[in-house]
């Protein structure tokens, strides 16, 4: 079928401002939006620039705004999105070129919550035991692929470059609720600061945007409760 791709372009060496460019291409309904981007780049305009790798929703490279919503380009099928597809880079991130955004501040915020197991006990000879029930508690937040779709869909994240953002909070949750971790206090110290968890306004855009189906707002809520009442 014939589709129209309306893509926001910006070349830092040639453009003063970002501008839209239209491309008419052939696509199959079961093609991914990423496949459509590849068709444009490979056969119409080699200068179109975007990140991509796994092409099946596990690496998180190709998060972008597709018809106004943050999605992974490789998880959206052309037939489901429609014949007119508008593609823009995510909001809340500085544009480097076309659909490629600066991910450094995002990763810095991730690193600030100490995203690694903190355990001060002597390491046993075999594995640490963890019950299946305890393992289940933090299962959802282990799924995060750091794609940025949640933070990039969050109005407080757009308006406040210091806000730590949903992704960092989700990854803090993964450890705070892991029965083997002993770093709750250290992480809560970061999350309770001004630009931490209480900037969240429970808007739910993040939960909608997450390509892994993580209940982001719920995870943030659980952290707020731990902070206020010291229990989950």
């Amino acid at each position, binding site marked *: 079928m014939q589709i129209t791709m309306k893509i926001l372009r910006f070349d830092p060496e040639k453009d003063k401002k970002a501008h839209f460019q239209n491309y008419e291409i052939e696509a199959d309904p079961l093609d991914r939006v990423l496949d459509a981007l590849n068709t444009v*780049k490979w056969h119409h305009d080699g200068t179109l620039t975007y990140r991509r790798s796994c092409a*099946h929703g596990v690496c998180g490279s190709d998060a972008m705004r597709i018809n106004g919503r943050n999605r992974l380009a490789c998880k959206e*099928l052309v037939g489901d999105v429609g014949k007119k597809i508008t593609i823009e880079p995510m909001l809340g991130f500085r544009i*480097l070129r076309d659909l490629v955004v600066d991910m450094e501040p995002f990763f810095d915020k991730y*690193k600030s919550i100490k995203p690694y197991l903190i355990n001060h006990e002597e390491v046993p000879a075999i594995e640490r035991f963890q019950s299946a029930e305890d393992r289940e508690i933090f299962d959802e937040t282990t799924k995060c692929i*750091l794609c940025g779709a949640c933070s990039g869909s969050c109005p407080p994240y757009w308006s406040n470059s210091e806000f730590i953002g949903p992704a960092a909070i989700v990854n803090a949750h993964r450890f705070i609720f892991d029965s083997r971790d002993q770093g709750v206090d250290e992480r809560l110290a970061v999350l309770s600061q001004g630009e931490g968890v209480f900037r969240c306004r429970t808007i739910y855009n993040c939960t909608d945007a997450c390509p892994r189906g993580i209940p982001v707002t719920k995870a943030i809520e659980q952290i707020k409760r731990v902070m206020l009442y010291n229990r989950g």
Partner: protein
Amino acid sequence: MYHKYDAVVVGAGGAGLMAALQMVGKANVAVITKLYPSRSHTGAAQGGICAALGNTEEDHWEWHMFDTVKGGDYLTDQDAAEVLARDAIERIIELEHMGLPFNRTPEGKIDQRRFGGHTRNYGEGPVRRSCFAADRTGHMILQTLYQQGIKNNVTFFNEFHLMDLIINNGRCVGVTAMDIKTGELHTFHSKATVFATGGYGRCWRVTSNAHACTGDGMVSAYRAGVPLMDMEMYQFHPTGLYRIGILLSEAARGEGGILRNSEGERFCERYAPTLKDLAPRDMVSRFIYQELREGRGAGPNKDYVYLHVDHLGKEVIDAKLPDITDFARTYLHVEPYTEGVPIQPTAHYAMGGIPTDVNGRVIMDEKGTVLPGFYAAGETACVSVHGANRLGTNSLVDLVVFGRRAGQNALQFIKDNDFEALPTNHEGRSNDLLRFVETGNDGSRKENAANIRKEMQDYMMDNVSVVRDAEKLTLALNKLYELKERYTKVKVSDSTQKFNTEKLEALELGAMLEMAEVTTKGALDRKESRGAHYREDYLKRDDQNFLAHTLVYRADDGNIKELRYKPVTLGRFEPKERKY
């Protein structure tokens, strides 16, 4: 720009991160990666990581070693298989200590499940050896190792594309790489260099591999005079999602999933009475190929078979196979609760690669002569621990076992050696490559890169895949010569320096054409069938002439110079016919 580090690791997947973690804090290490580390292809691995922990039933590392040797159709170097099986146990425990969220048994131990080719008591029946985190084990390993990298303050150069390996006075002295953000060439001068750059599945039309898997590390070593080993040994995973190639993990069959043809028959039972659907991957791919050939494929083109998990029930599917079922629903609009999922063999894994010893040191010939200062680990390396066919769950354990060994040995090398100088004009080859892609917009360059790539992928898929013969291989090889010629005229229209991915894709295409060529040539010259390399014109395994690894060397003009053979390291398991 010039950088000096004791060690440079290229690649930030499981093997690269593991190698870097051995050295950080004890030496000055930099990790160079073409993607952000969490995007690496390790993250796509689903099924599991195996070790003879014996948490749910009796198991021994000797059994694991045997399965690996037999699984590799006896091309596996037995010293490597022993190291893998022995070290695996400690490595898995170490991963758990680092925080990896394994699925647990009711007693709270690391849970284990069955997987293709892994048996108890030297082939008696399937054994529960695969440790897993739902069906996203690779994702959890990558995340956990990256997190350890953050904890230990590893220095990363993200989105730097490897250009060249630098050798001087018979020693490896570093690499050059292009900063993708700026287009600038950087030199990394080091005492030790570790390549953990992954595979090259993008040479084939239907593949489980990410777009980034284009053989950059292998080709850089090859161009610098290092031979590549066993390149014809390329694995086709039996259950790739139809047409797209996305992997549906063997774990589905480990949990009880079965394959059916268009007649509804569980055909694996016919070909492999004992292990059935859990026979090793190369065999299952051939079973499927045979069914399609004999007209029992499903669909309008009769070109796929079905993977059924519907009989396992919603609870098992949701708990154990959530990602796999998501793929079927998302990409084919098929409901695994009630329907069979269309699947076909997909280009998946390179058993071959840069030859190393069991300590990760790169070797240059059949005698095992080491190239000082150069190491390789993971899919990029060929120890050879996987021989002619890799068992499922053995790759993730390969990453941590040999990634660690490469890192430790590199660290020792750093302690024992000074820096060797860079040669004059060490950026020469890199600058030539960059000039080639940067002048791609002058009038004489008219070839479309995507068209060249597509033709390569089609010819490789049709002629250098599950079933091969001299005619098909020769046809493919001739096509590749033609494509290499056309590549010299490839058009690159993007003239911007910053984040120029058209330039990048042109460089990757050059790498893939050479990887395809050495794979096809190795297959043509190996006149036998062994593991994943199956020849209809040479159906039997020929231990007399081919119980050896293929080494391919490059000539200065860019063609293949010669093929040599390196004997397999034998051991306690005598080569026997491979039946399951």
